[in-house]
């Protein structure tokens, strides 16, 4: 019951509190009142103001279509109405409205149509271009546990990187805090549309996420920070695990108090932004995304998650997932991976080019991610490299299956697969028309649709966004 209330509060974006999510102690009259009388925390104090751009109905004909769920249709017809996918399939299987004079017809013969790419690991906005000192907003390194910070509060919506990612076919993305901390803070999921505010970009009704980090980074930044700020624990991987467990234990206690208040009334616990995020995880509302390279560490994290009763949505970077892909499949944890990054630090030393297909082949959830403002522009090429490397060692995966690494699997890891991530009737029309086979290095995104509206067109300068920062600068409006 209590979970239902909380979930509803988040879902509807409603503040059930009297005014703005305050924490005023309830009066005595609530002592025995209904659950609905409780003062609940506003779980959505920075609500999305995203609204899809105006669009006309569109029919795209003749393309090779990857549906993002493993299917491929040659000479496909795809119908978009009111921003949603309303029909797709063979030409004779799709009924096109004949009475709508606003219908836009696109001949895509020779081209490919796919769901838009979803990058579930980006720092656009929090580490934007230009990378000047004033723009370093992605790591709140003041303490190893900063679950109270939210990446959206560090995002600069004018980051030109968003426009480059758009030209690479990115339609949704997760912006994460960095990996300095054990708990880095909340991530946020965006539609890749230019906005004046980050709220204008926020993916409606998407869950929040929590960034956590394993291994070298937290212990380097704190314990071995060269005596620099802030110093202190953790000094070791032992300290990392102790740090997580201490915080989770505190969160369990905080949740007990909150649940007690919701169930039985009395005094609510004092607000604690850090605990609210962790309790959100324990309640299943907030999804955990955990930076973790080494196989042995991932296995320990899975045990810890079980100890405290939550699940890991995706391990990020996960360069050793190929060593424990069977265990990851069993746990239902995704791996968000690069095709071939390796060696820049010890925990990345065992990277192999076949990591992604080997994870896929074990039946685990494989995701291609970027963690890079350059890589995010060509994740299709990263998938192509991984696909071909896998095939060379006998892992037969079709291009249609491989596209799940780019859209449906990341959508699942972000809890938005009900709205986007594949070409399915009723889903958001977040799609890309490629000028050829997107597994070719020569292919580029020609048109990108988000909720049915063309937000990027390679052949139409008027549909190529230019961020404020680049106006009046060298190269403004240049083809990038």
């Amino acid at each position, binding site marked *: 019951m209590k979970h239902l209330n909380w979930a509803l509060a988040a879902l509807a974006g409603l503040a059930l509190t009297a005014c703005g999510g305050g924490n005023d102690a309830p009066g005595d009259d609530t002592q025995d009142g209904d659950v609905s009388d409780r003062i609940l925390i506003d779980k959505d104090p920075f609500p999305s103001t995203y609204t899809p751009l105006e669009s006309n109905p569109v029919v795209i004909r003749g393309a090779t279509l990857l549906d993002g769920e493993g299917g491929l249709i040659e000479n496909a017809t795809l119908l978009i109405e009111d921003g949603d996918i309303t029909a797709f399939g063979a030409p004779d299987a799709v009924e096109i409205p004949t009475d709508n004079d606003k219908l836009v017809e696109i001949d895509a013969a020779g081209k490919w149509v796919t769901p838009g790419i979803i990058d579930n690991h980006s720092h656009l906005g929090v580490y934007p271009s230009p*990378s000047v000192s004033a723009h370093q907003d992605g790591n709140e390194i003041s303490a190893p546990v900063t679950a109270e910070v939210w990446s959206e509060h560090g995002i600069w919506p004018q980051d*030109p990187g968003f426009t480059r990612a758009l030209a690479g076919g990115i339609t949704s993305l997760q912006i994460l805090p960095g990996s300095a901390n054990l708990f880095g803070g909340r991530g946020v999921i965006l539609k890749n549309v230019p906005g004046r505010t980050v709220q204008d970009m926020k993916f409606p009704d998407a869950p929040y996420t929590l960034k956590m980090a394993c291994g070298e980074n937290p212990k380097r930044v704190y314990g071995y920070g060269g005596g620099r700020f802030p110093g202190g624990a953790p000094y070791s991987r032992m300290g990392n695990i102790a740090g997580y467990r201490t915080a989770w234990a505190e969160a369990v206690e905080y949740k007990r108090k909150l649940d007690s208040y919701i169930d039985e009334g009395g005094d609510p616990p004092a607000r604690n932004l850090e605990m609210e995020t962790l309790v959100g995880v324990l309640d299943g509302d907030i999804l955990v995304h955990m930076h973790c390279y080494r196989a042995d560490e991932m296995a320990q994290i899975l045990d810890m998650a079980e100890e405290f009763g939550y699940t890991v949505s995706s391990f990020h970077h996960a360069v050793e997932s190929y*060593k424990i892909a*069977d265990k990851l499949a069993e746990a239902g944890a995704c791996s968000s991976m690069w095709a071939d990054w390796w060696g820049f*630090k*010890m925990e990345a030393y065992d990277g192999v080019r076949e990591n992604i297909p*080997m994870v896929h082949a074990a039946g685990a959830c494989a995701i291609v991610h970027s963690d890079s403002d350059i890589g995010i522009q060509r994740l299709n*090429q990263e998938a*192509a490299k991984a696909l071909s490397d896998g095939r060379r060692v006998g892992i037969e995966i079709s291009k249609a299956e491989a596209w799940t690494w780019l859209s449906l699997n990341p959508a699942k890891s972000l809890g938005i697969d009900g709205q986007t991530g594949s070409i399915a009737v009723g889903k958001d029309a977040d799609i890309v028309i490629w000028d050829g086979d997107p597994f070719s290095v020569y292919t580029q995104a020609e048109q990108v649709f988000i909720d049915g509206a063309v937000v990027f067109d390679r052949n139409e300068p008027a549909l190529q966004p230019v961020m404020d920062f680049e106006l009046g600068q060298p190269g403004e409006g240049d083809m*990038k």
Partner: protein
Amino acid sequence: MIFKTLLTGAAALAFTTGAALAQTVAITNAKAWTGTSQGTVDNATIIVVDGAVAEVRTGSAALPSGADVVDADGSWVTPGIIAPFTRIGLVEVGAEDTTNDISAGSSPYSVALKAADGFNPAATTVPITRLEGVTRIIVAPGTGNDLFAGKGMVADTSGAMDSILDDDAFVFIRMGEAGASQAGGSRSAAWTRLRAALSDARTFPARYLSHDAGDALTRVDAQAFGPAARGRQLILVEAHRASDIARLIDLARTAPELNMAIVGGDEAWMVAEDLAESKIPVILDPFQNLPASFQQLGASQENAARLIEAGVVTAFAHLADDGHQARLVLQSAGNAVANGVDHDDALAAITVAPAAIFGLENLGTIAPGAIADLVVWDGDPLEVMSAPTHIFIAGEEQSLESRQTRLRDRYLGLDNGDLPFAYKRGEAPE
């Protein structure tokens, strides 16, 4: 081409070393991209004798007796790829200082620091790079506490202890924001230091005999900078902003004896005509299209196409994590094609052009007399789904194995049999 041929002696030496081991090889049925006026030769047979290309001919004919025959089955054969800016062999694990010899922030020396002293042919990065078709690497040191990083080198990727082709190939310096920061805080500080260093080096050793010190450089650094300051060695300069490059062009006009090339050059297209006229080549990363700093505001993926169109000798590099990922230079070249570069020019930018910039005689082409660095591909070499099937360095076929392939094979199928994975070793390397 303004570059002197500096490496003839060293190249000939490597050639001889390889020849002692090399078999006679015939690659048949090749789609041979030659990098010469022959263009791409279909149905080609390439004959390799004593480590060098002896003949490129069309169609099948009698093959030399005893030749190892490789049937390319109609697929592409290219010269070995030359990665024109890397830190391969200088670093094993980036974040572990003990394994990282790229730069020396606490050294009293700068220009004299030789990358070759730290180069390890047995580094895991060497075969990992080779597997992507890269047979020659340009290896540059990184800057420590001076805008002068030191001396770069050229090596092959065979992993042999004698794989260094030239251990004193060029001087690498950084201008722009990096140089300004190293020199004291401004571009004028960097330029003053560069001009003073040129003067020190040009007057070495006389100045040091009479004054016992130079204005900018220690005795050791002044001596090391001497050949470059006198125009007998390449100066490779990192610069991005158009105005920084324009200053370098001005320097080249006032000191025409200097051999300079730009690396980075994100805004080079804005001064393309002047670069072409000054015959200053550019080594660029075709991925760069973000205003990553205020010196890269004009970055565009069309940089490469515009420079080539203007007649600038242009080579491609993959500059991100160049200690491990220089191998991605082929993907970089493919992306350049997607952004307007002709396919032939893109291949030249990772073969012919780097050979020209670094004076690598007899490398970068498939032609009679060329060192037989050859790669047989299973598809278009610039496609991300293609890979080499055979790699030759100076006529000697190379292993396609690396530490990464061994790790992969251990865990492939997650089948360890009766014992833990640690007992599964597959085929041990020779």
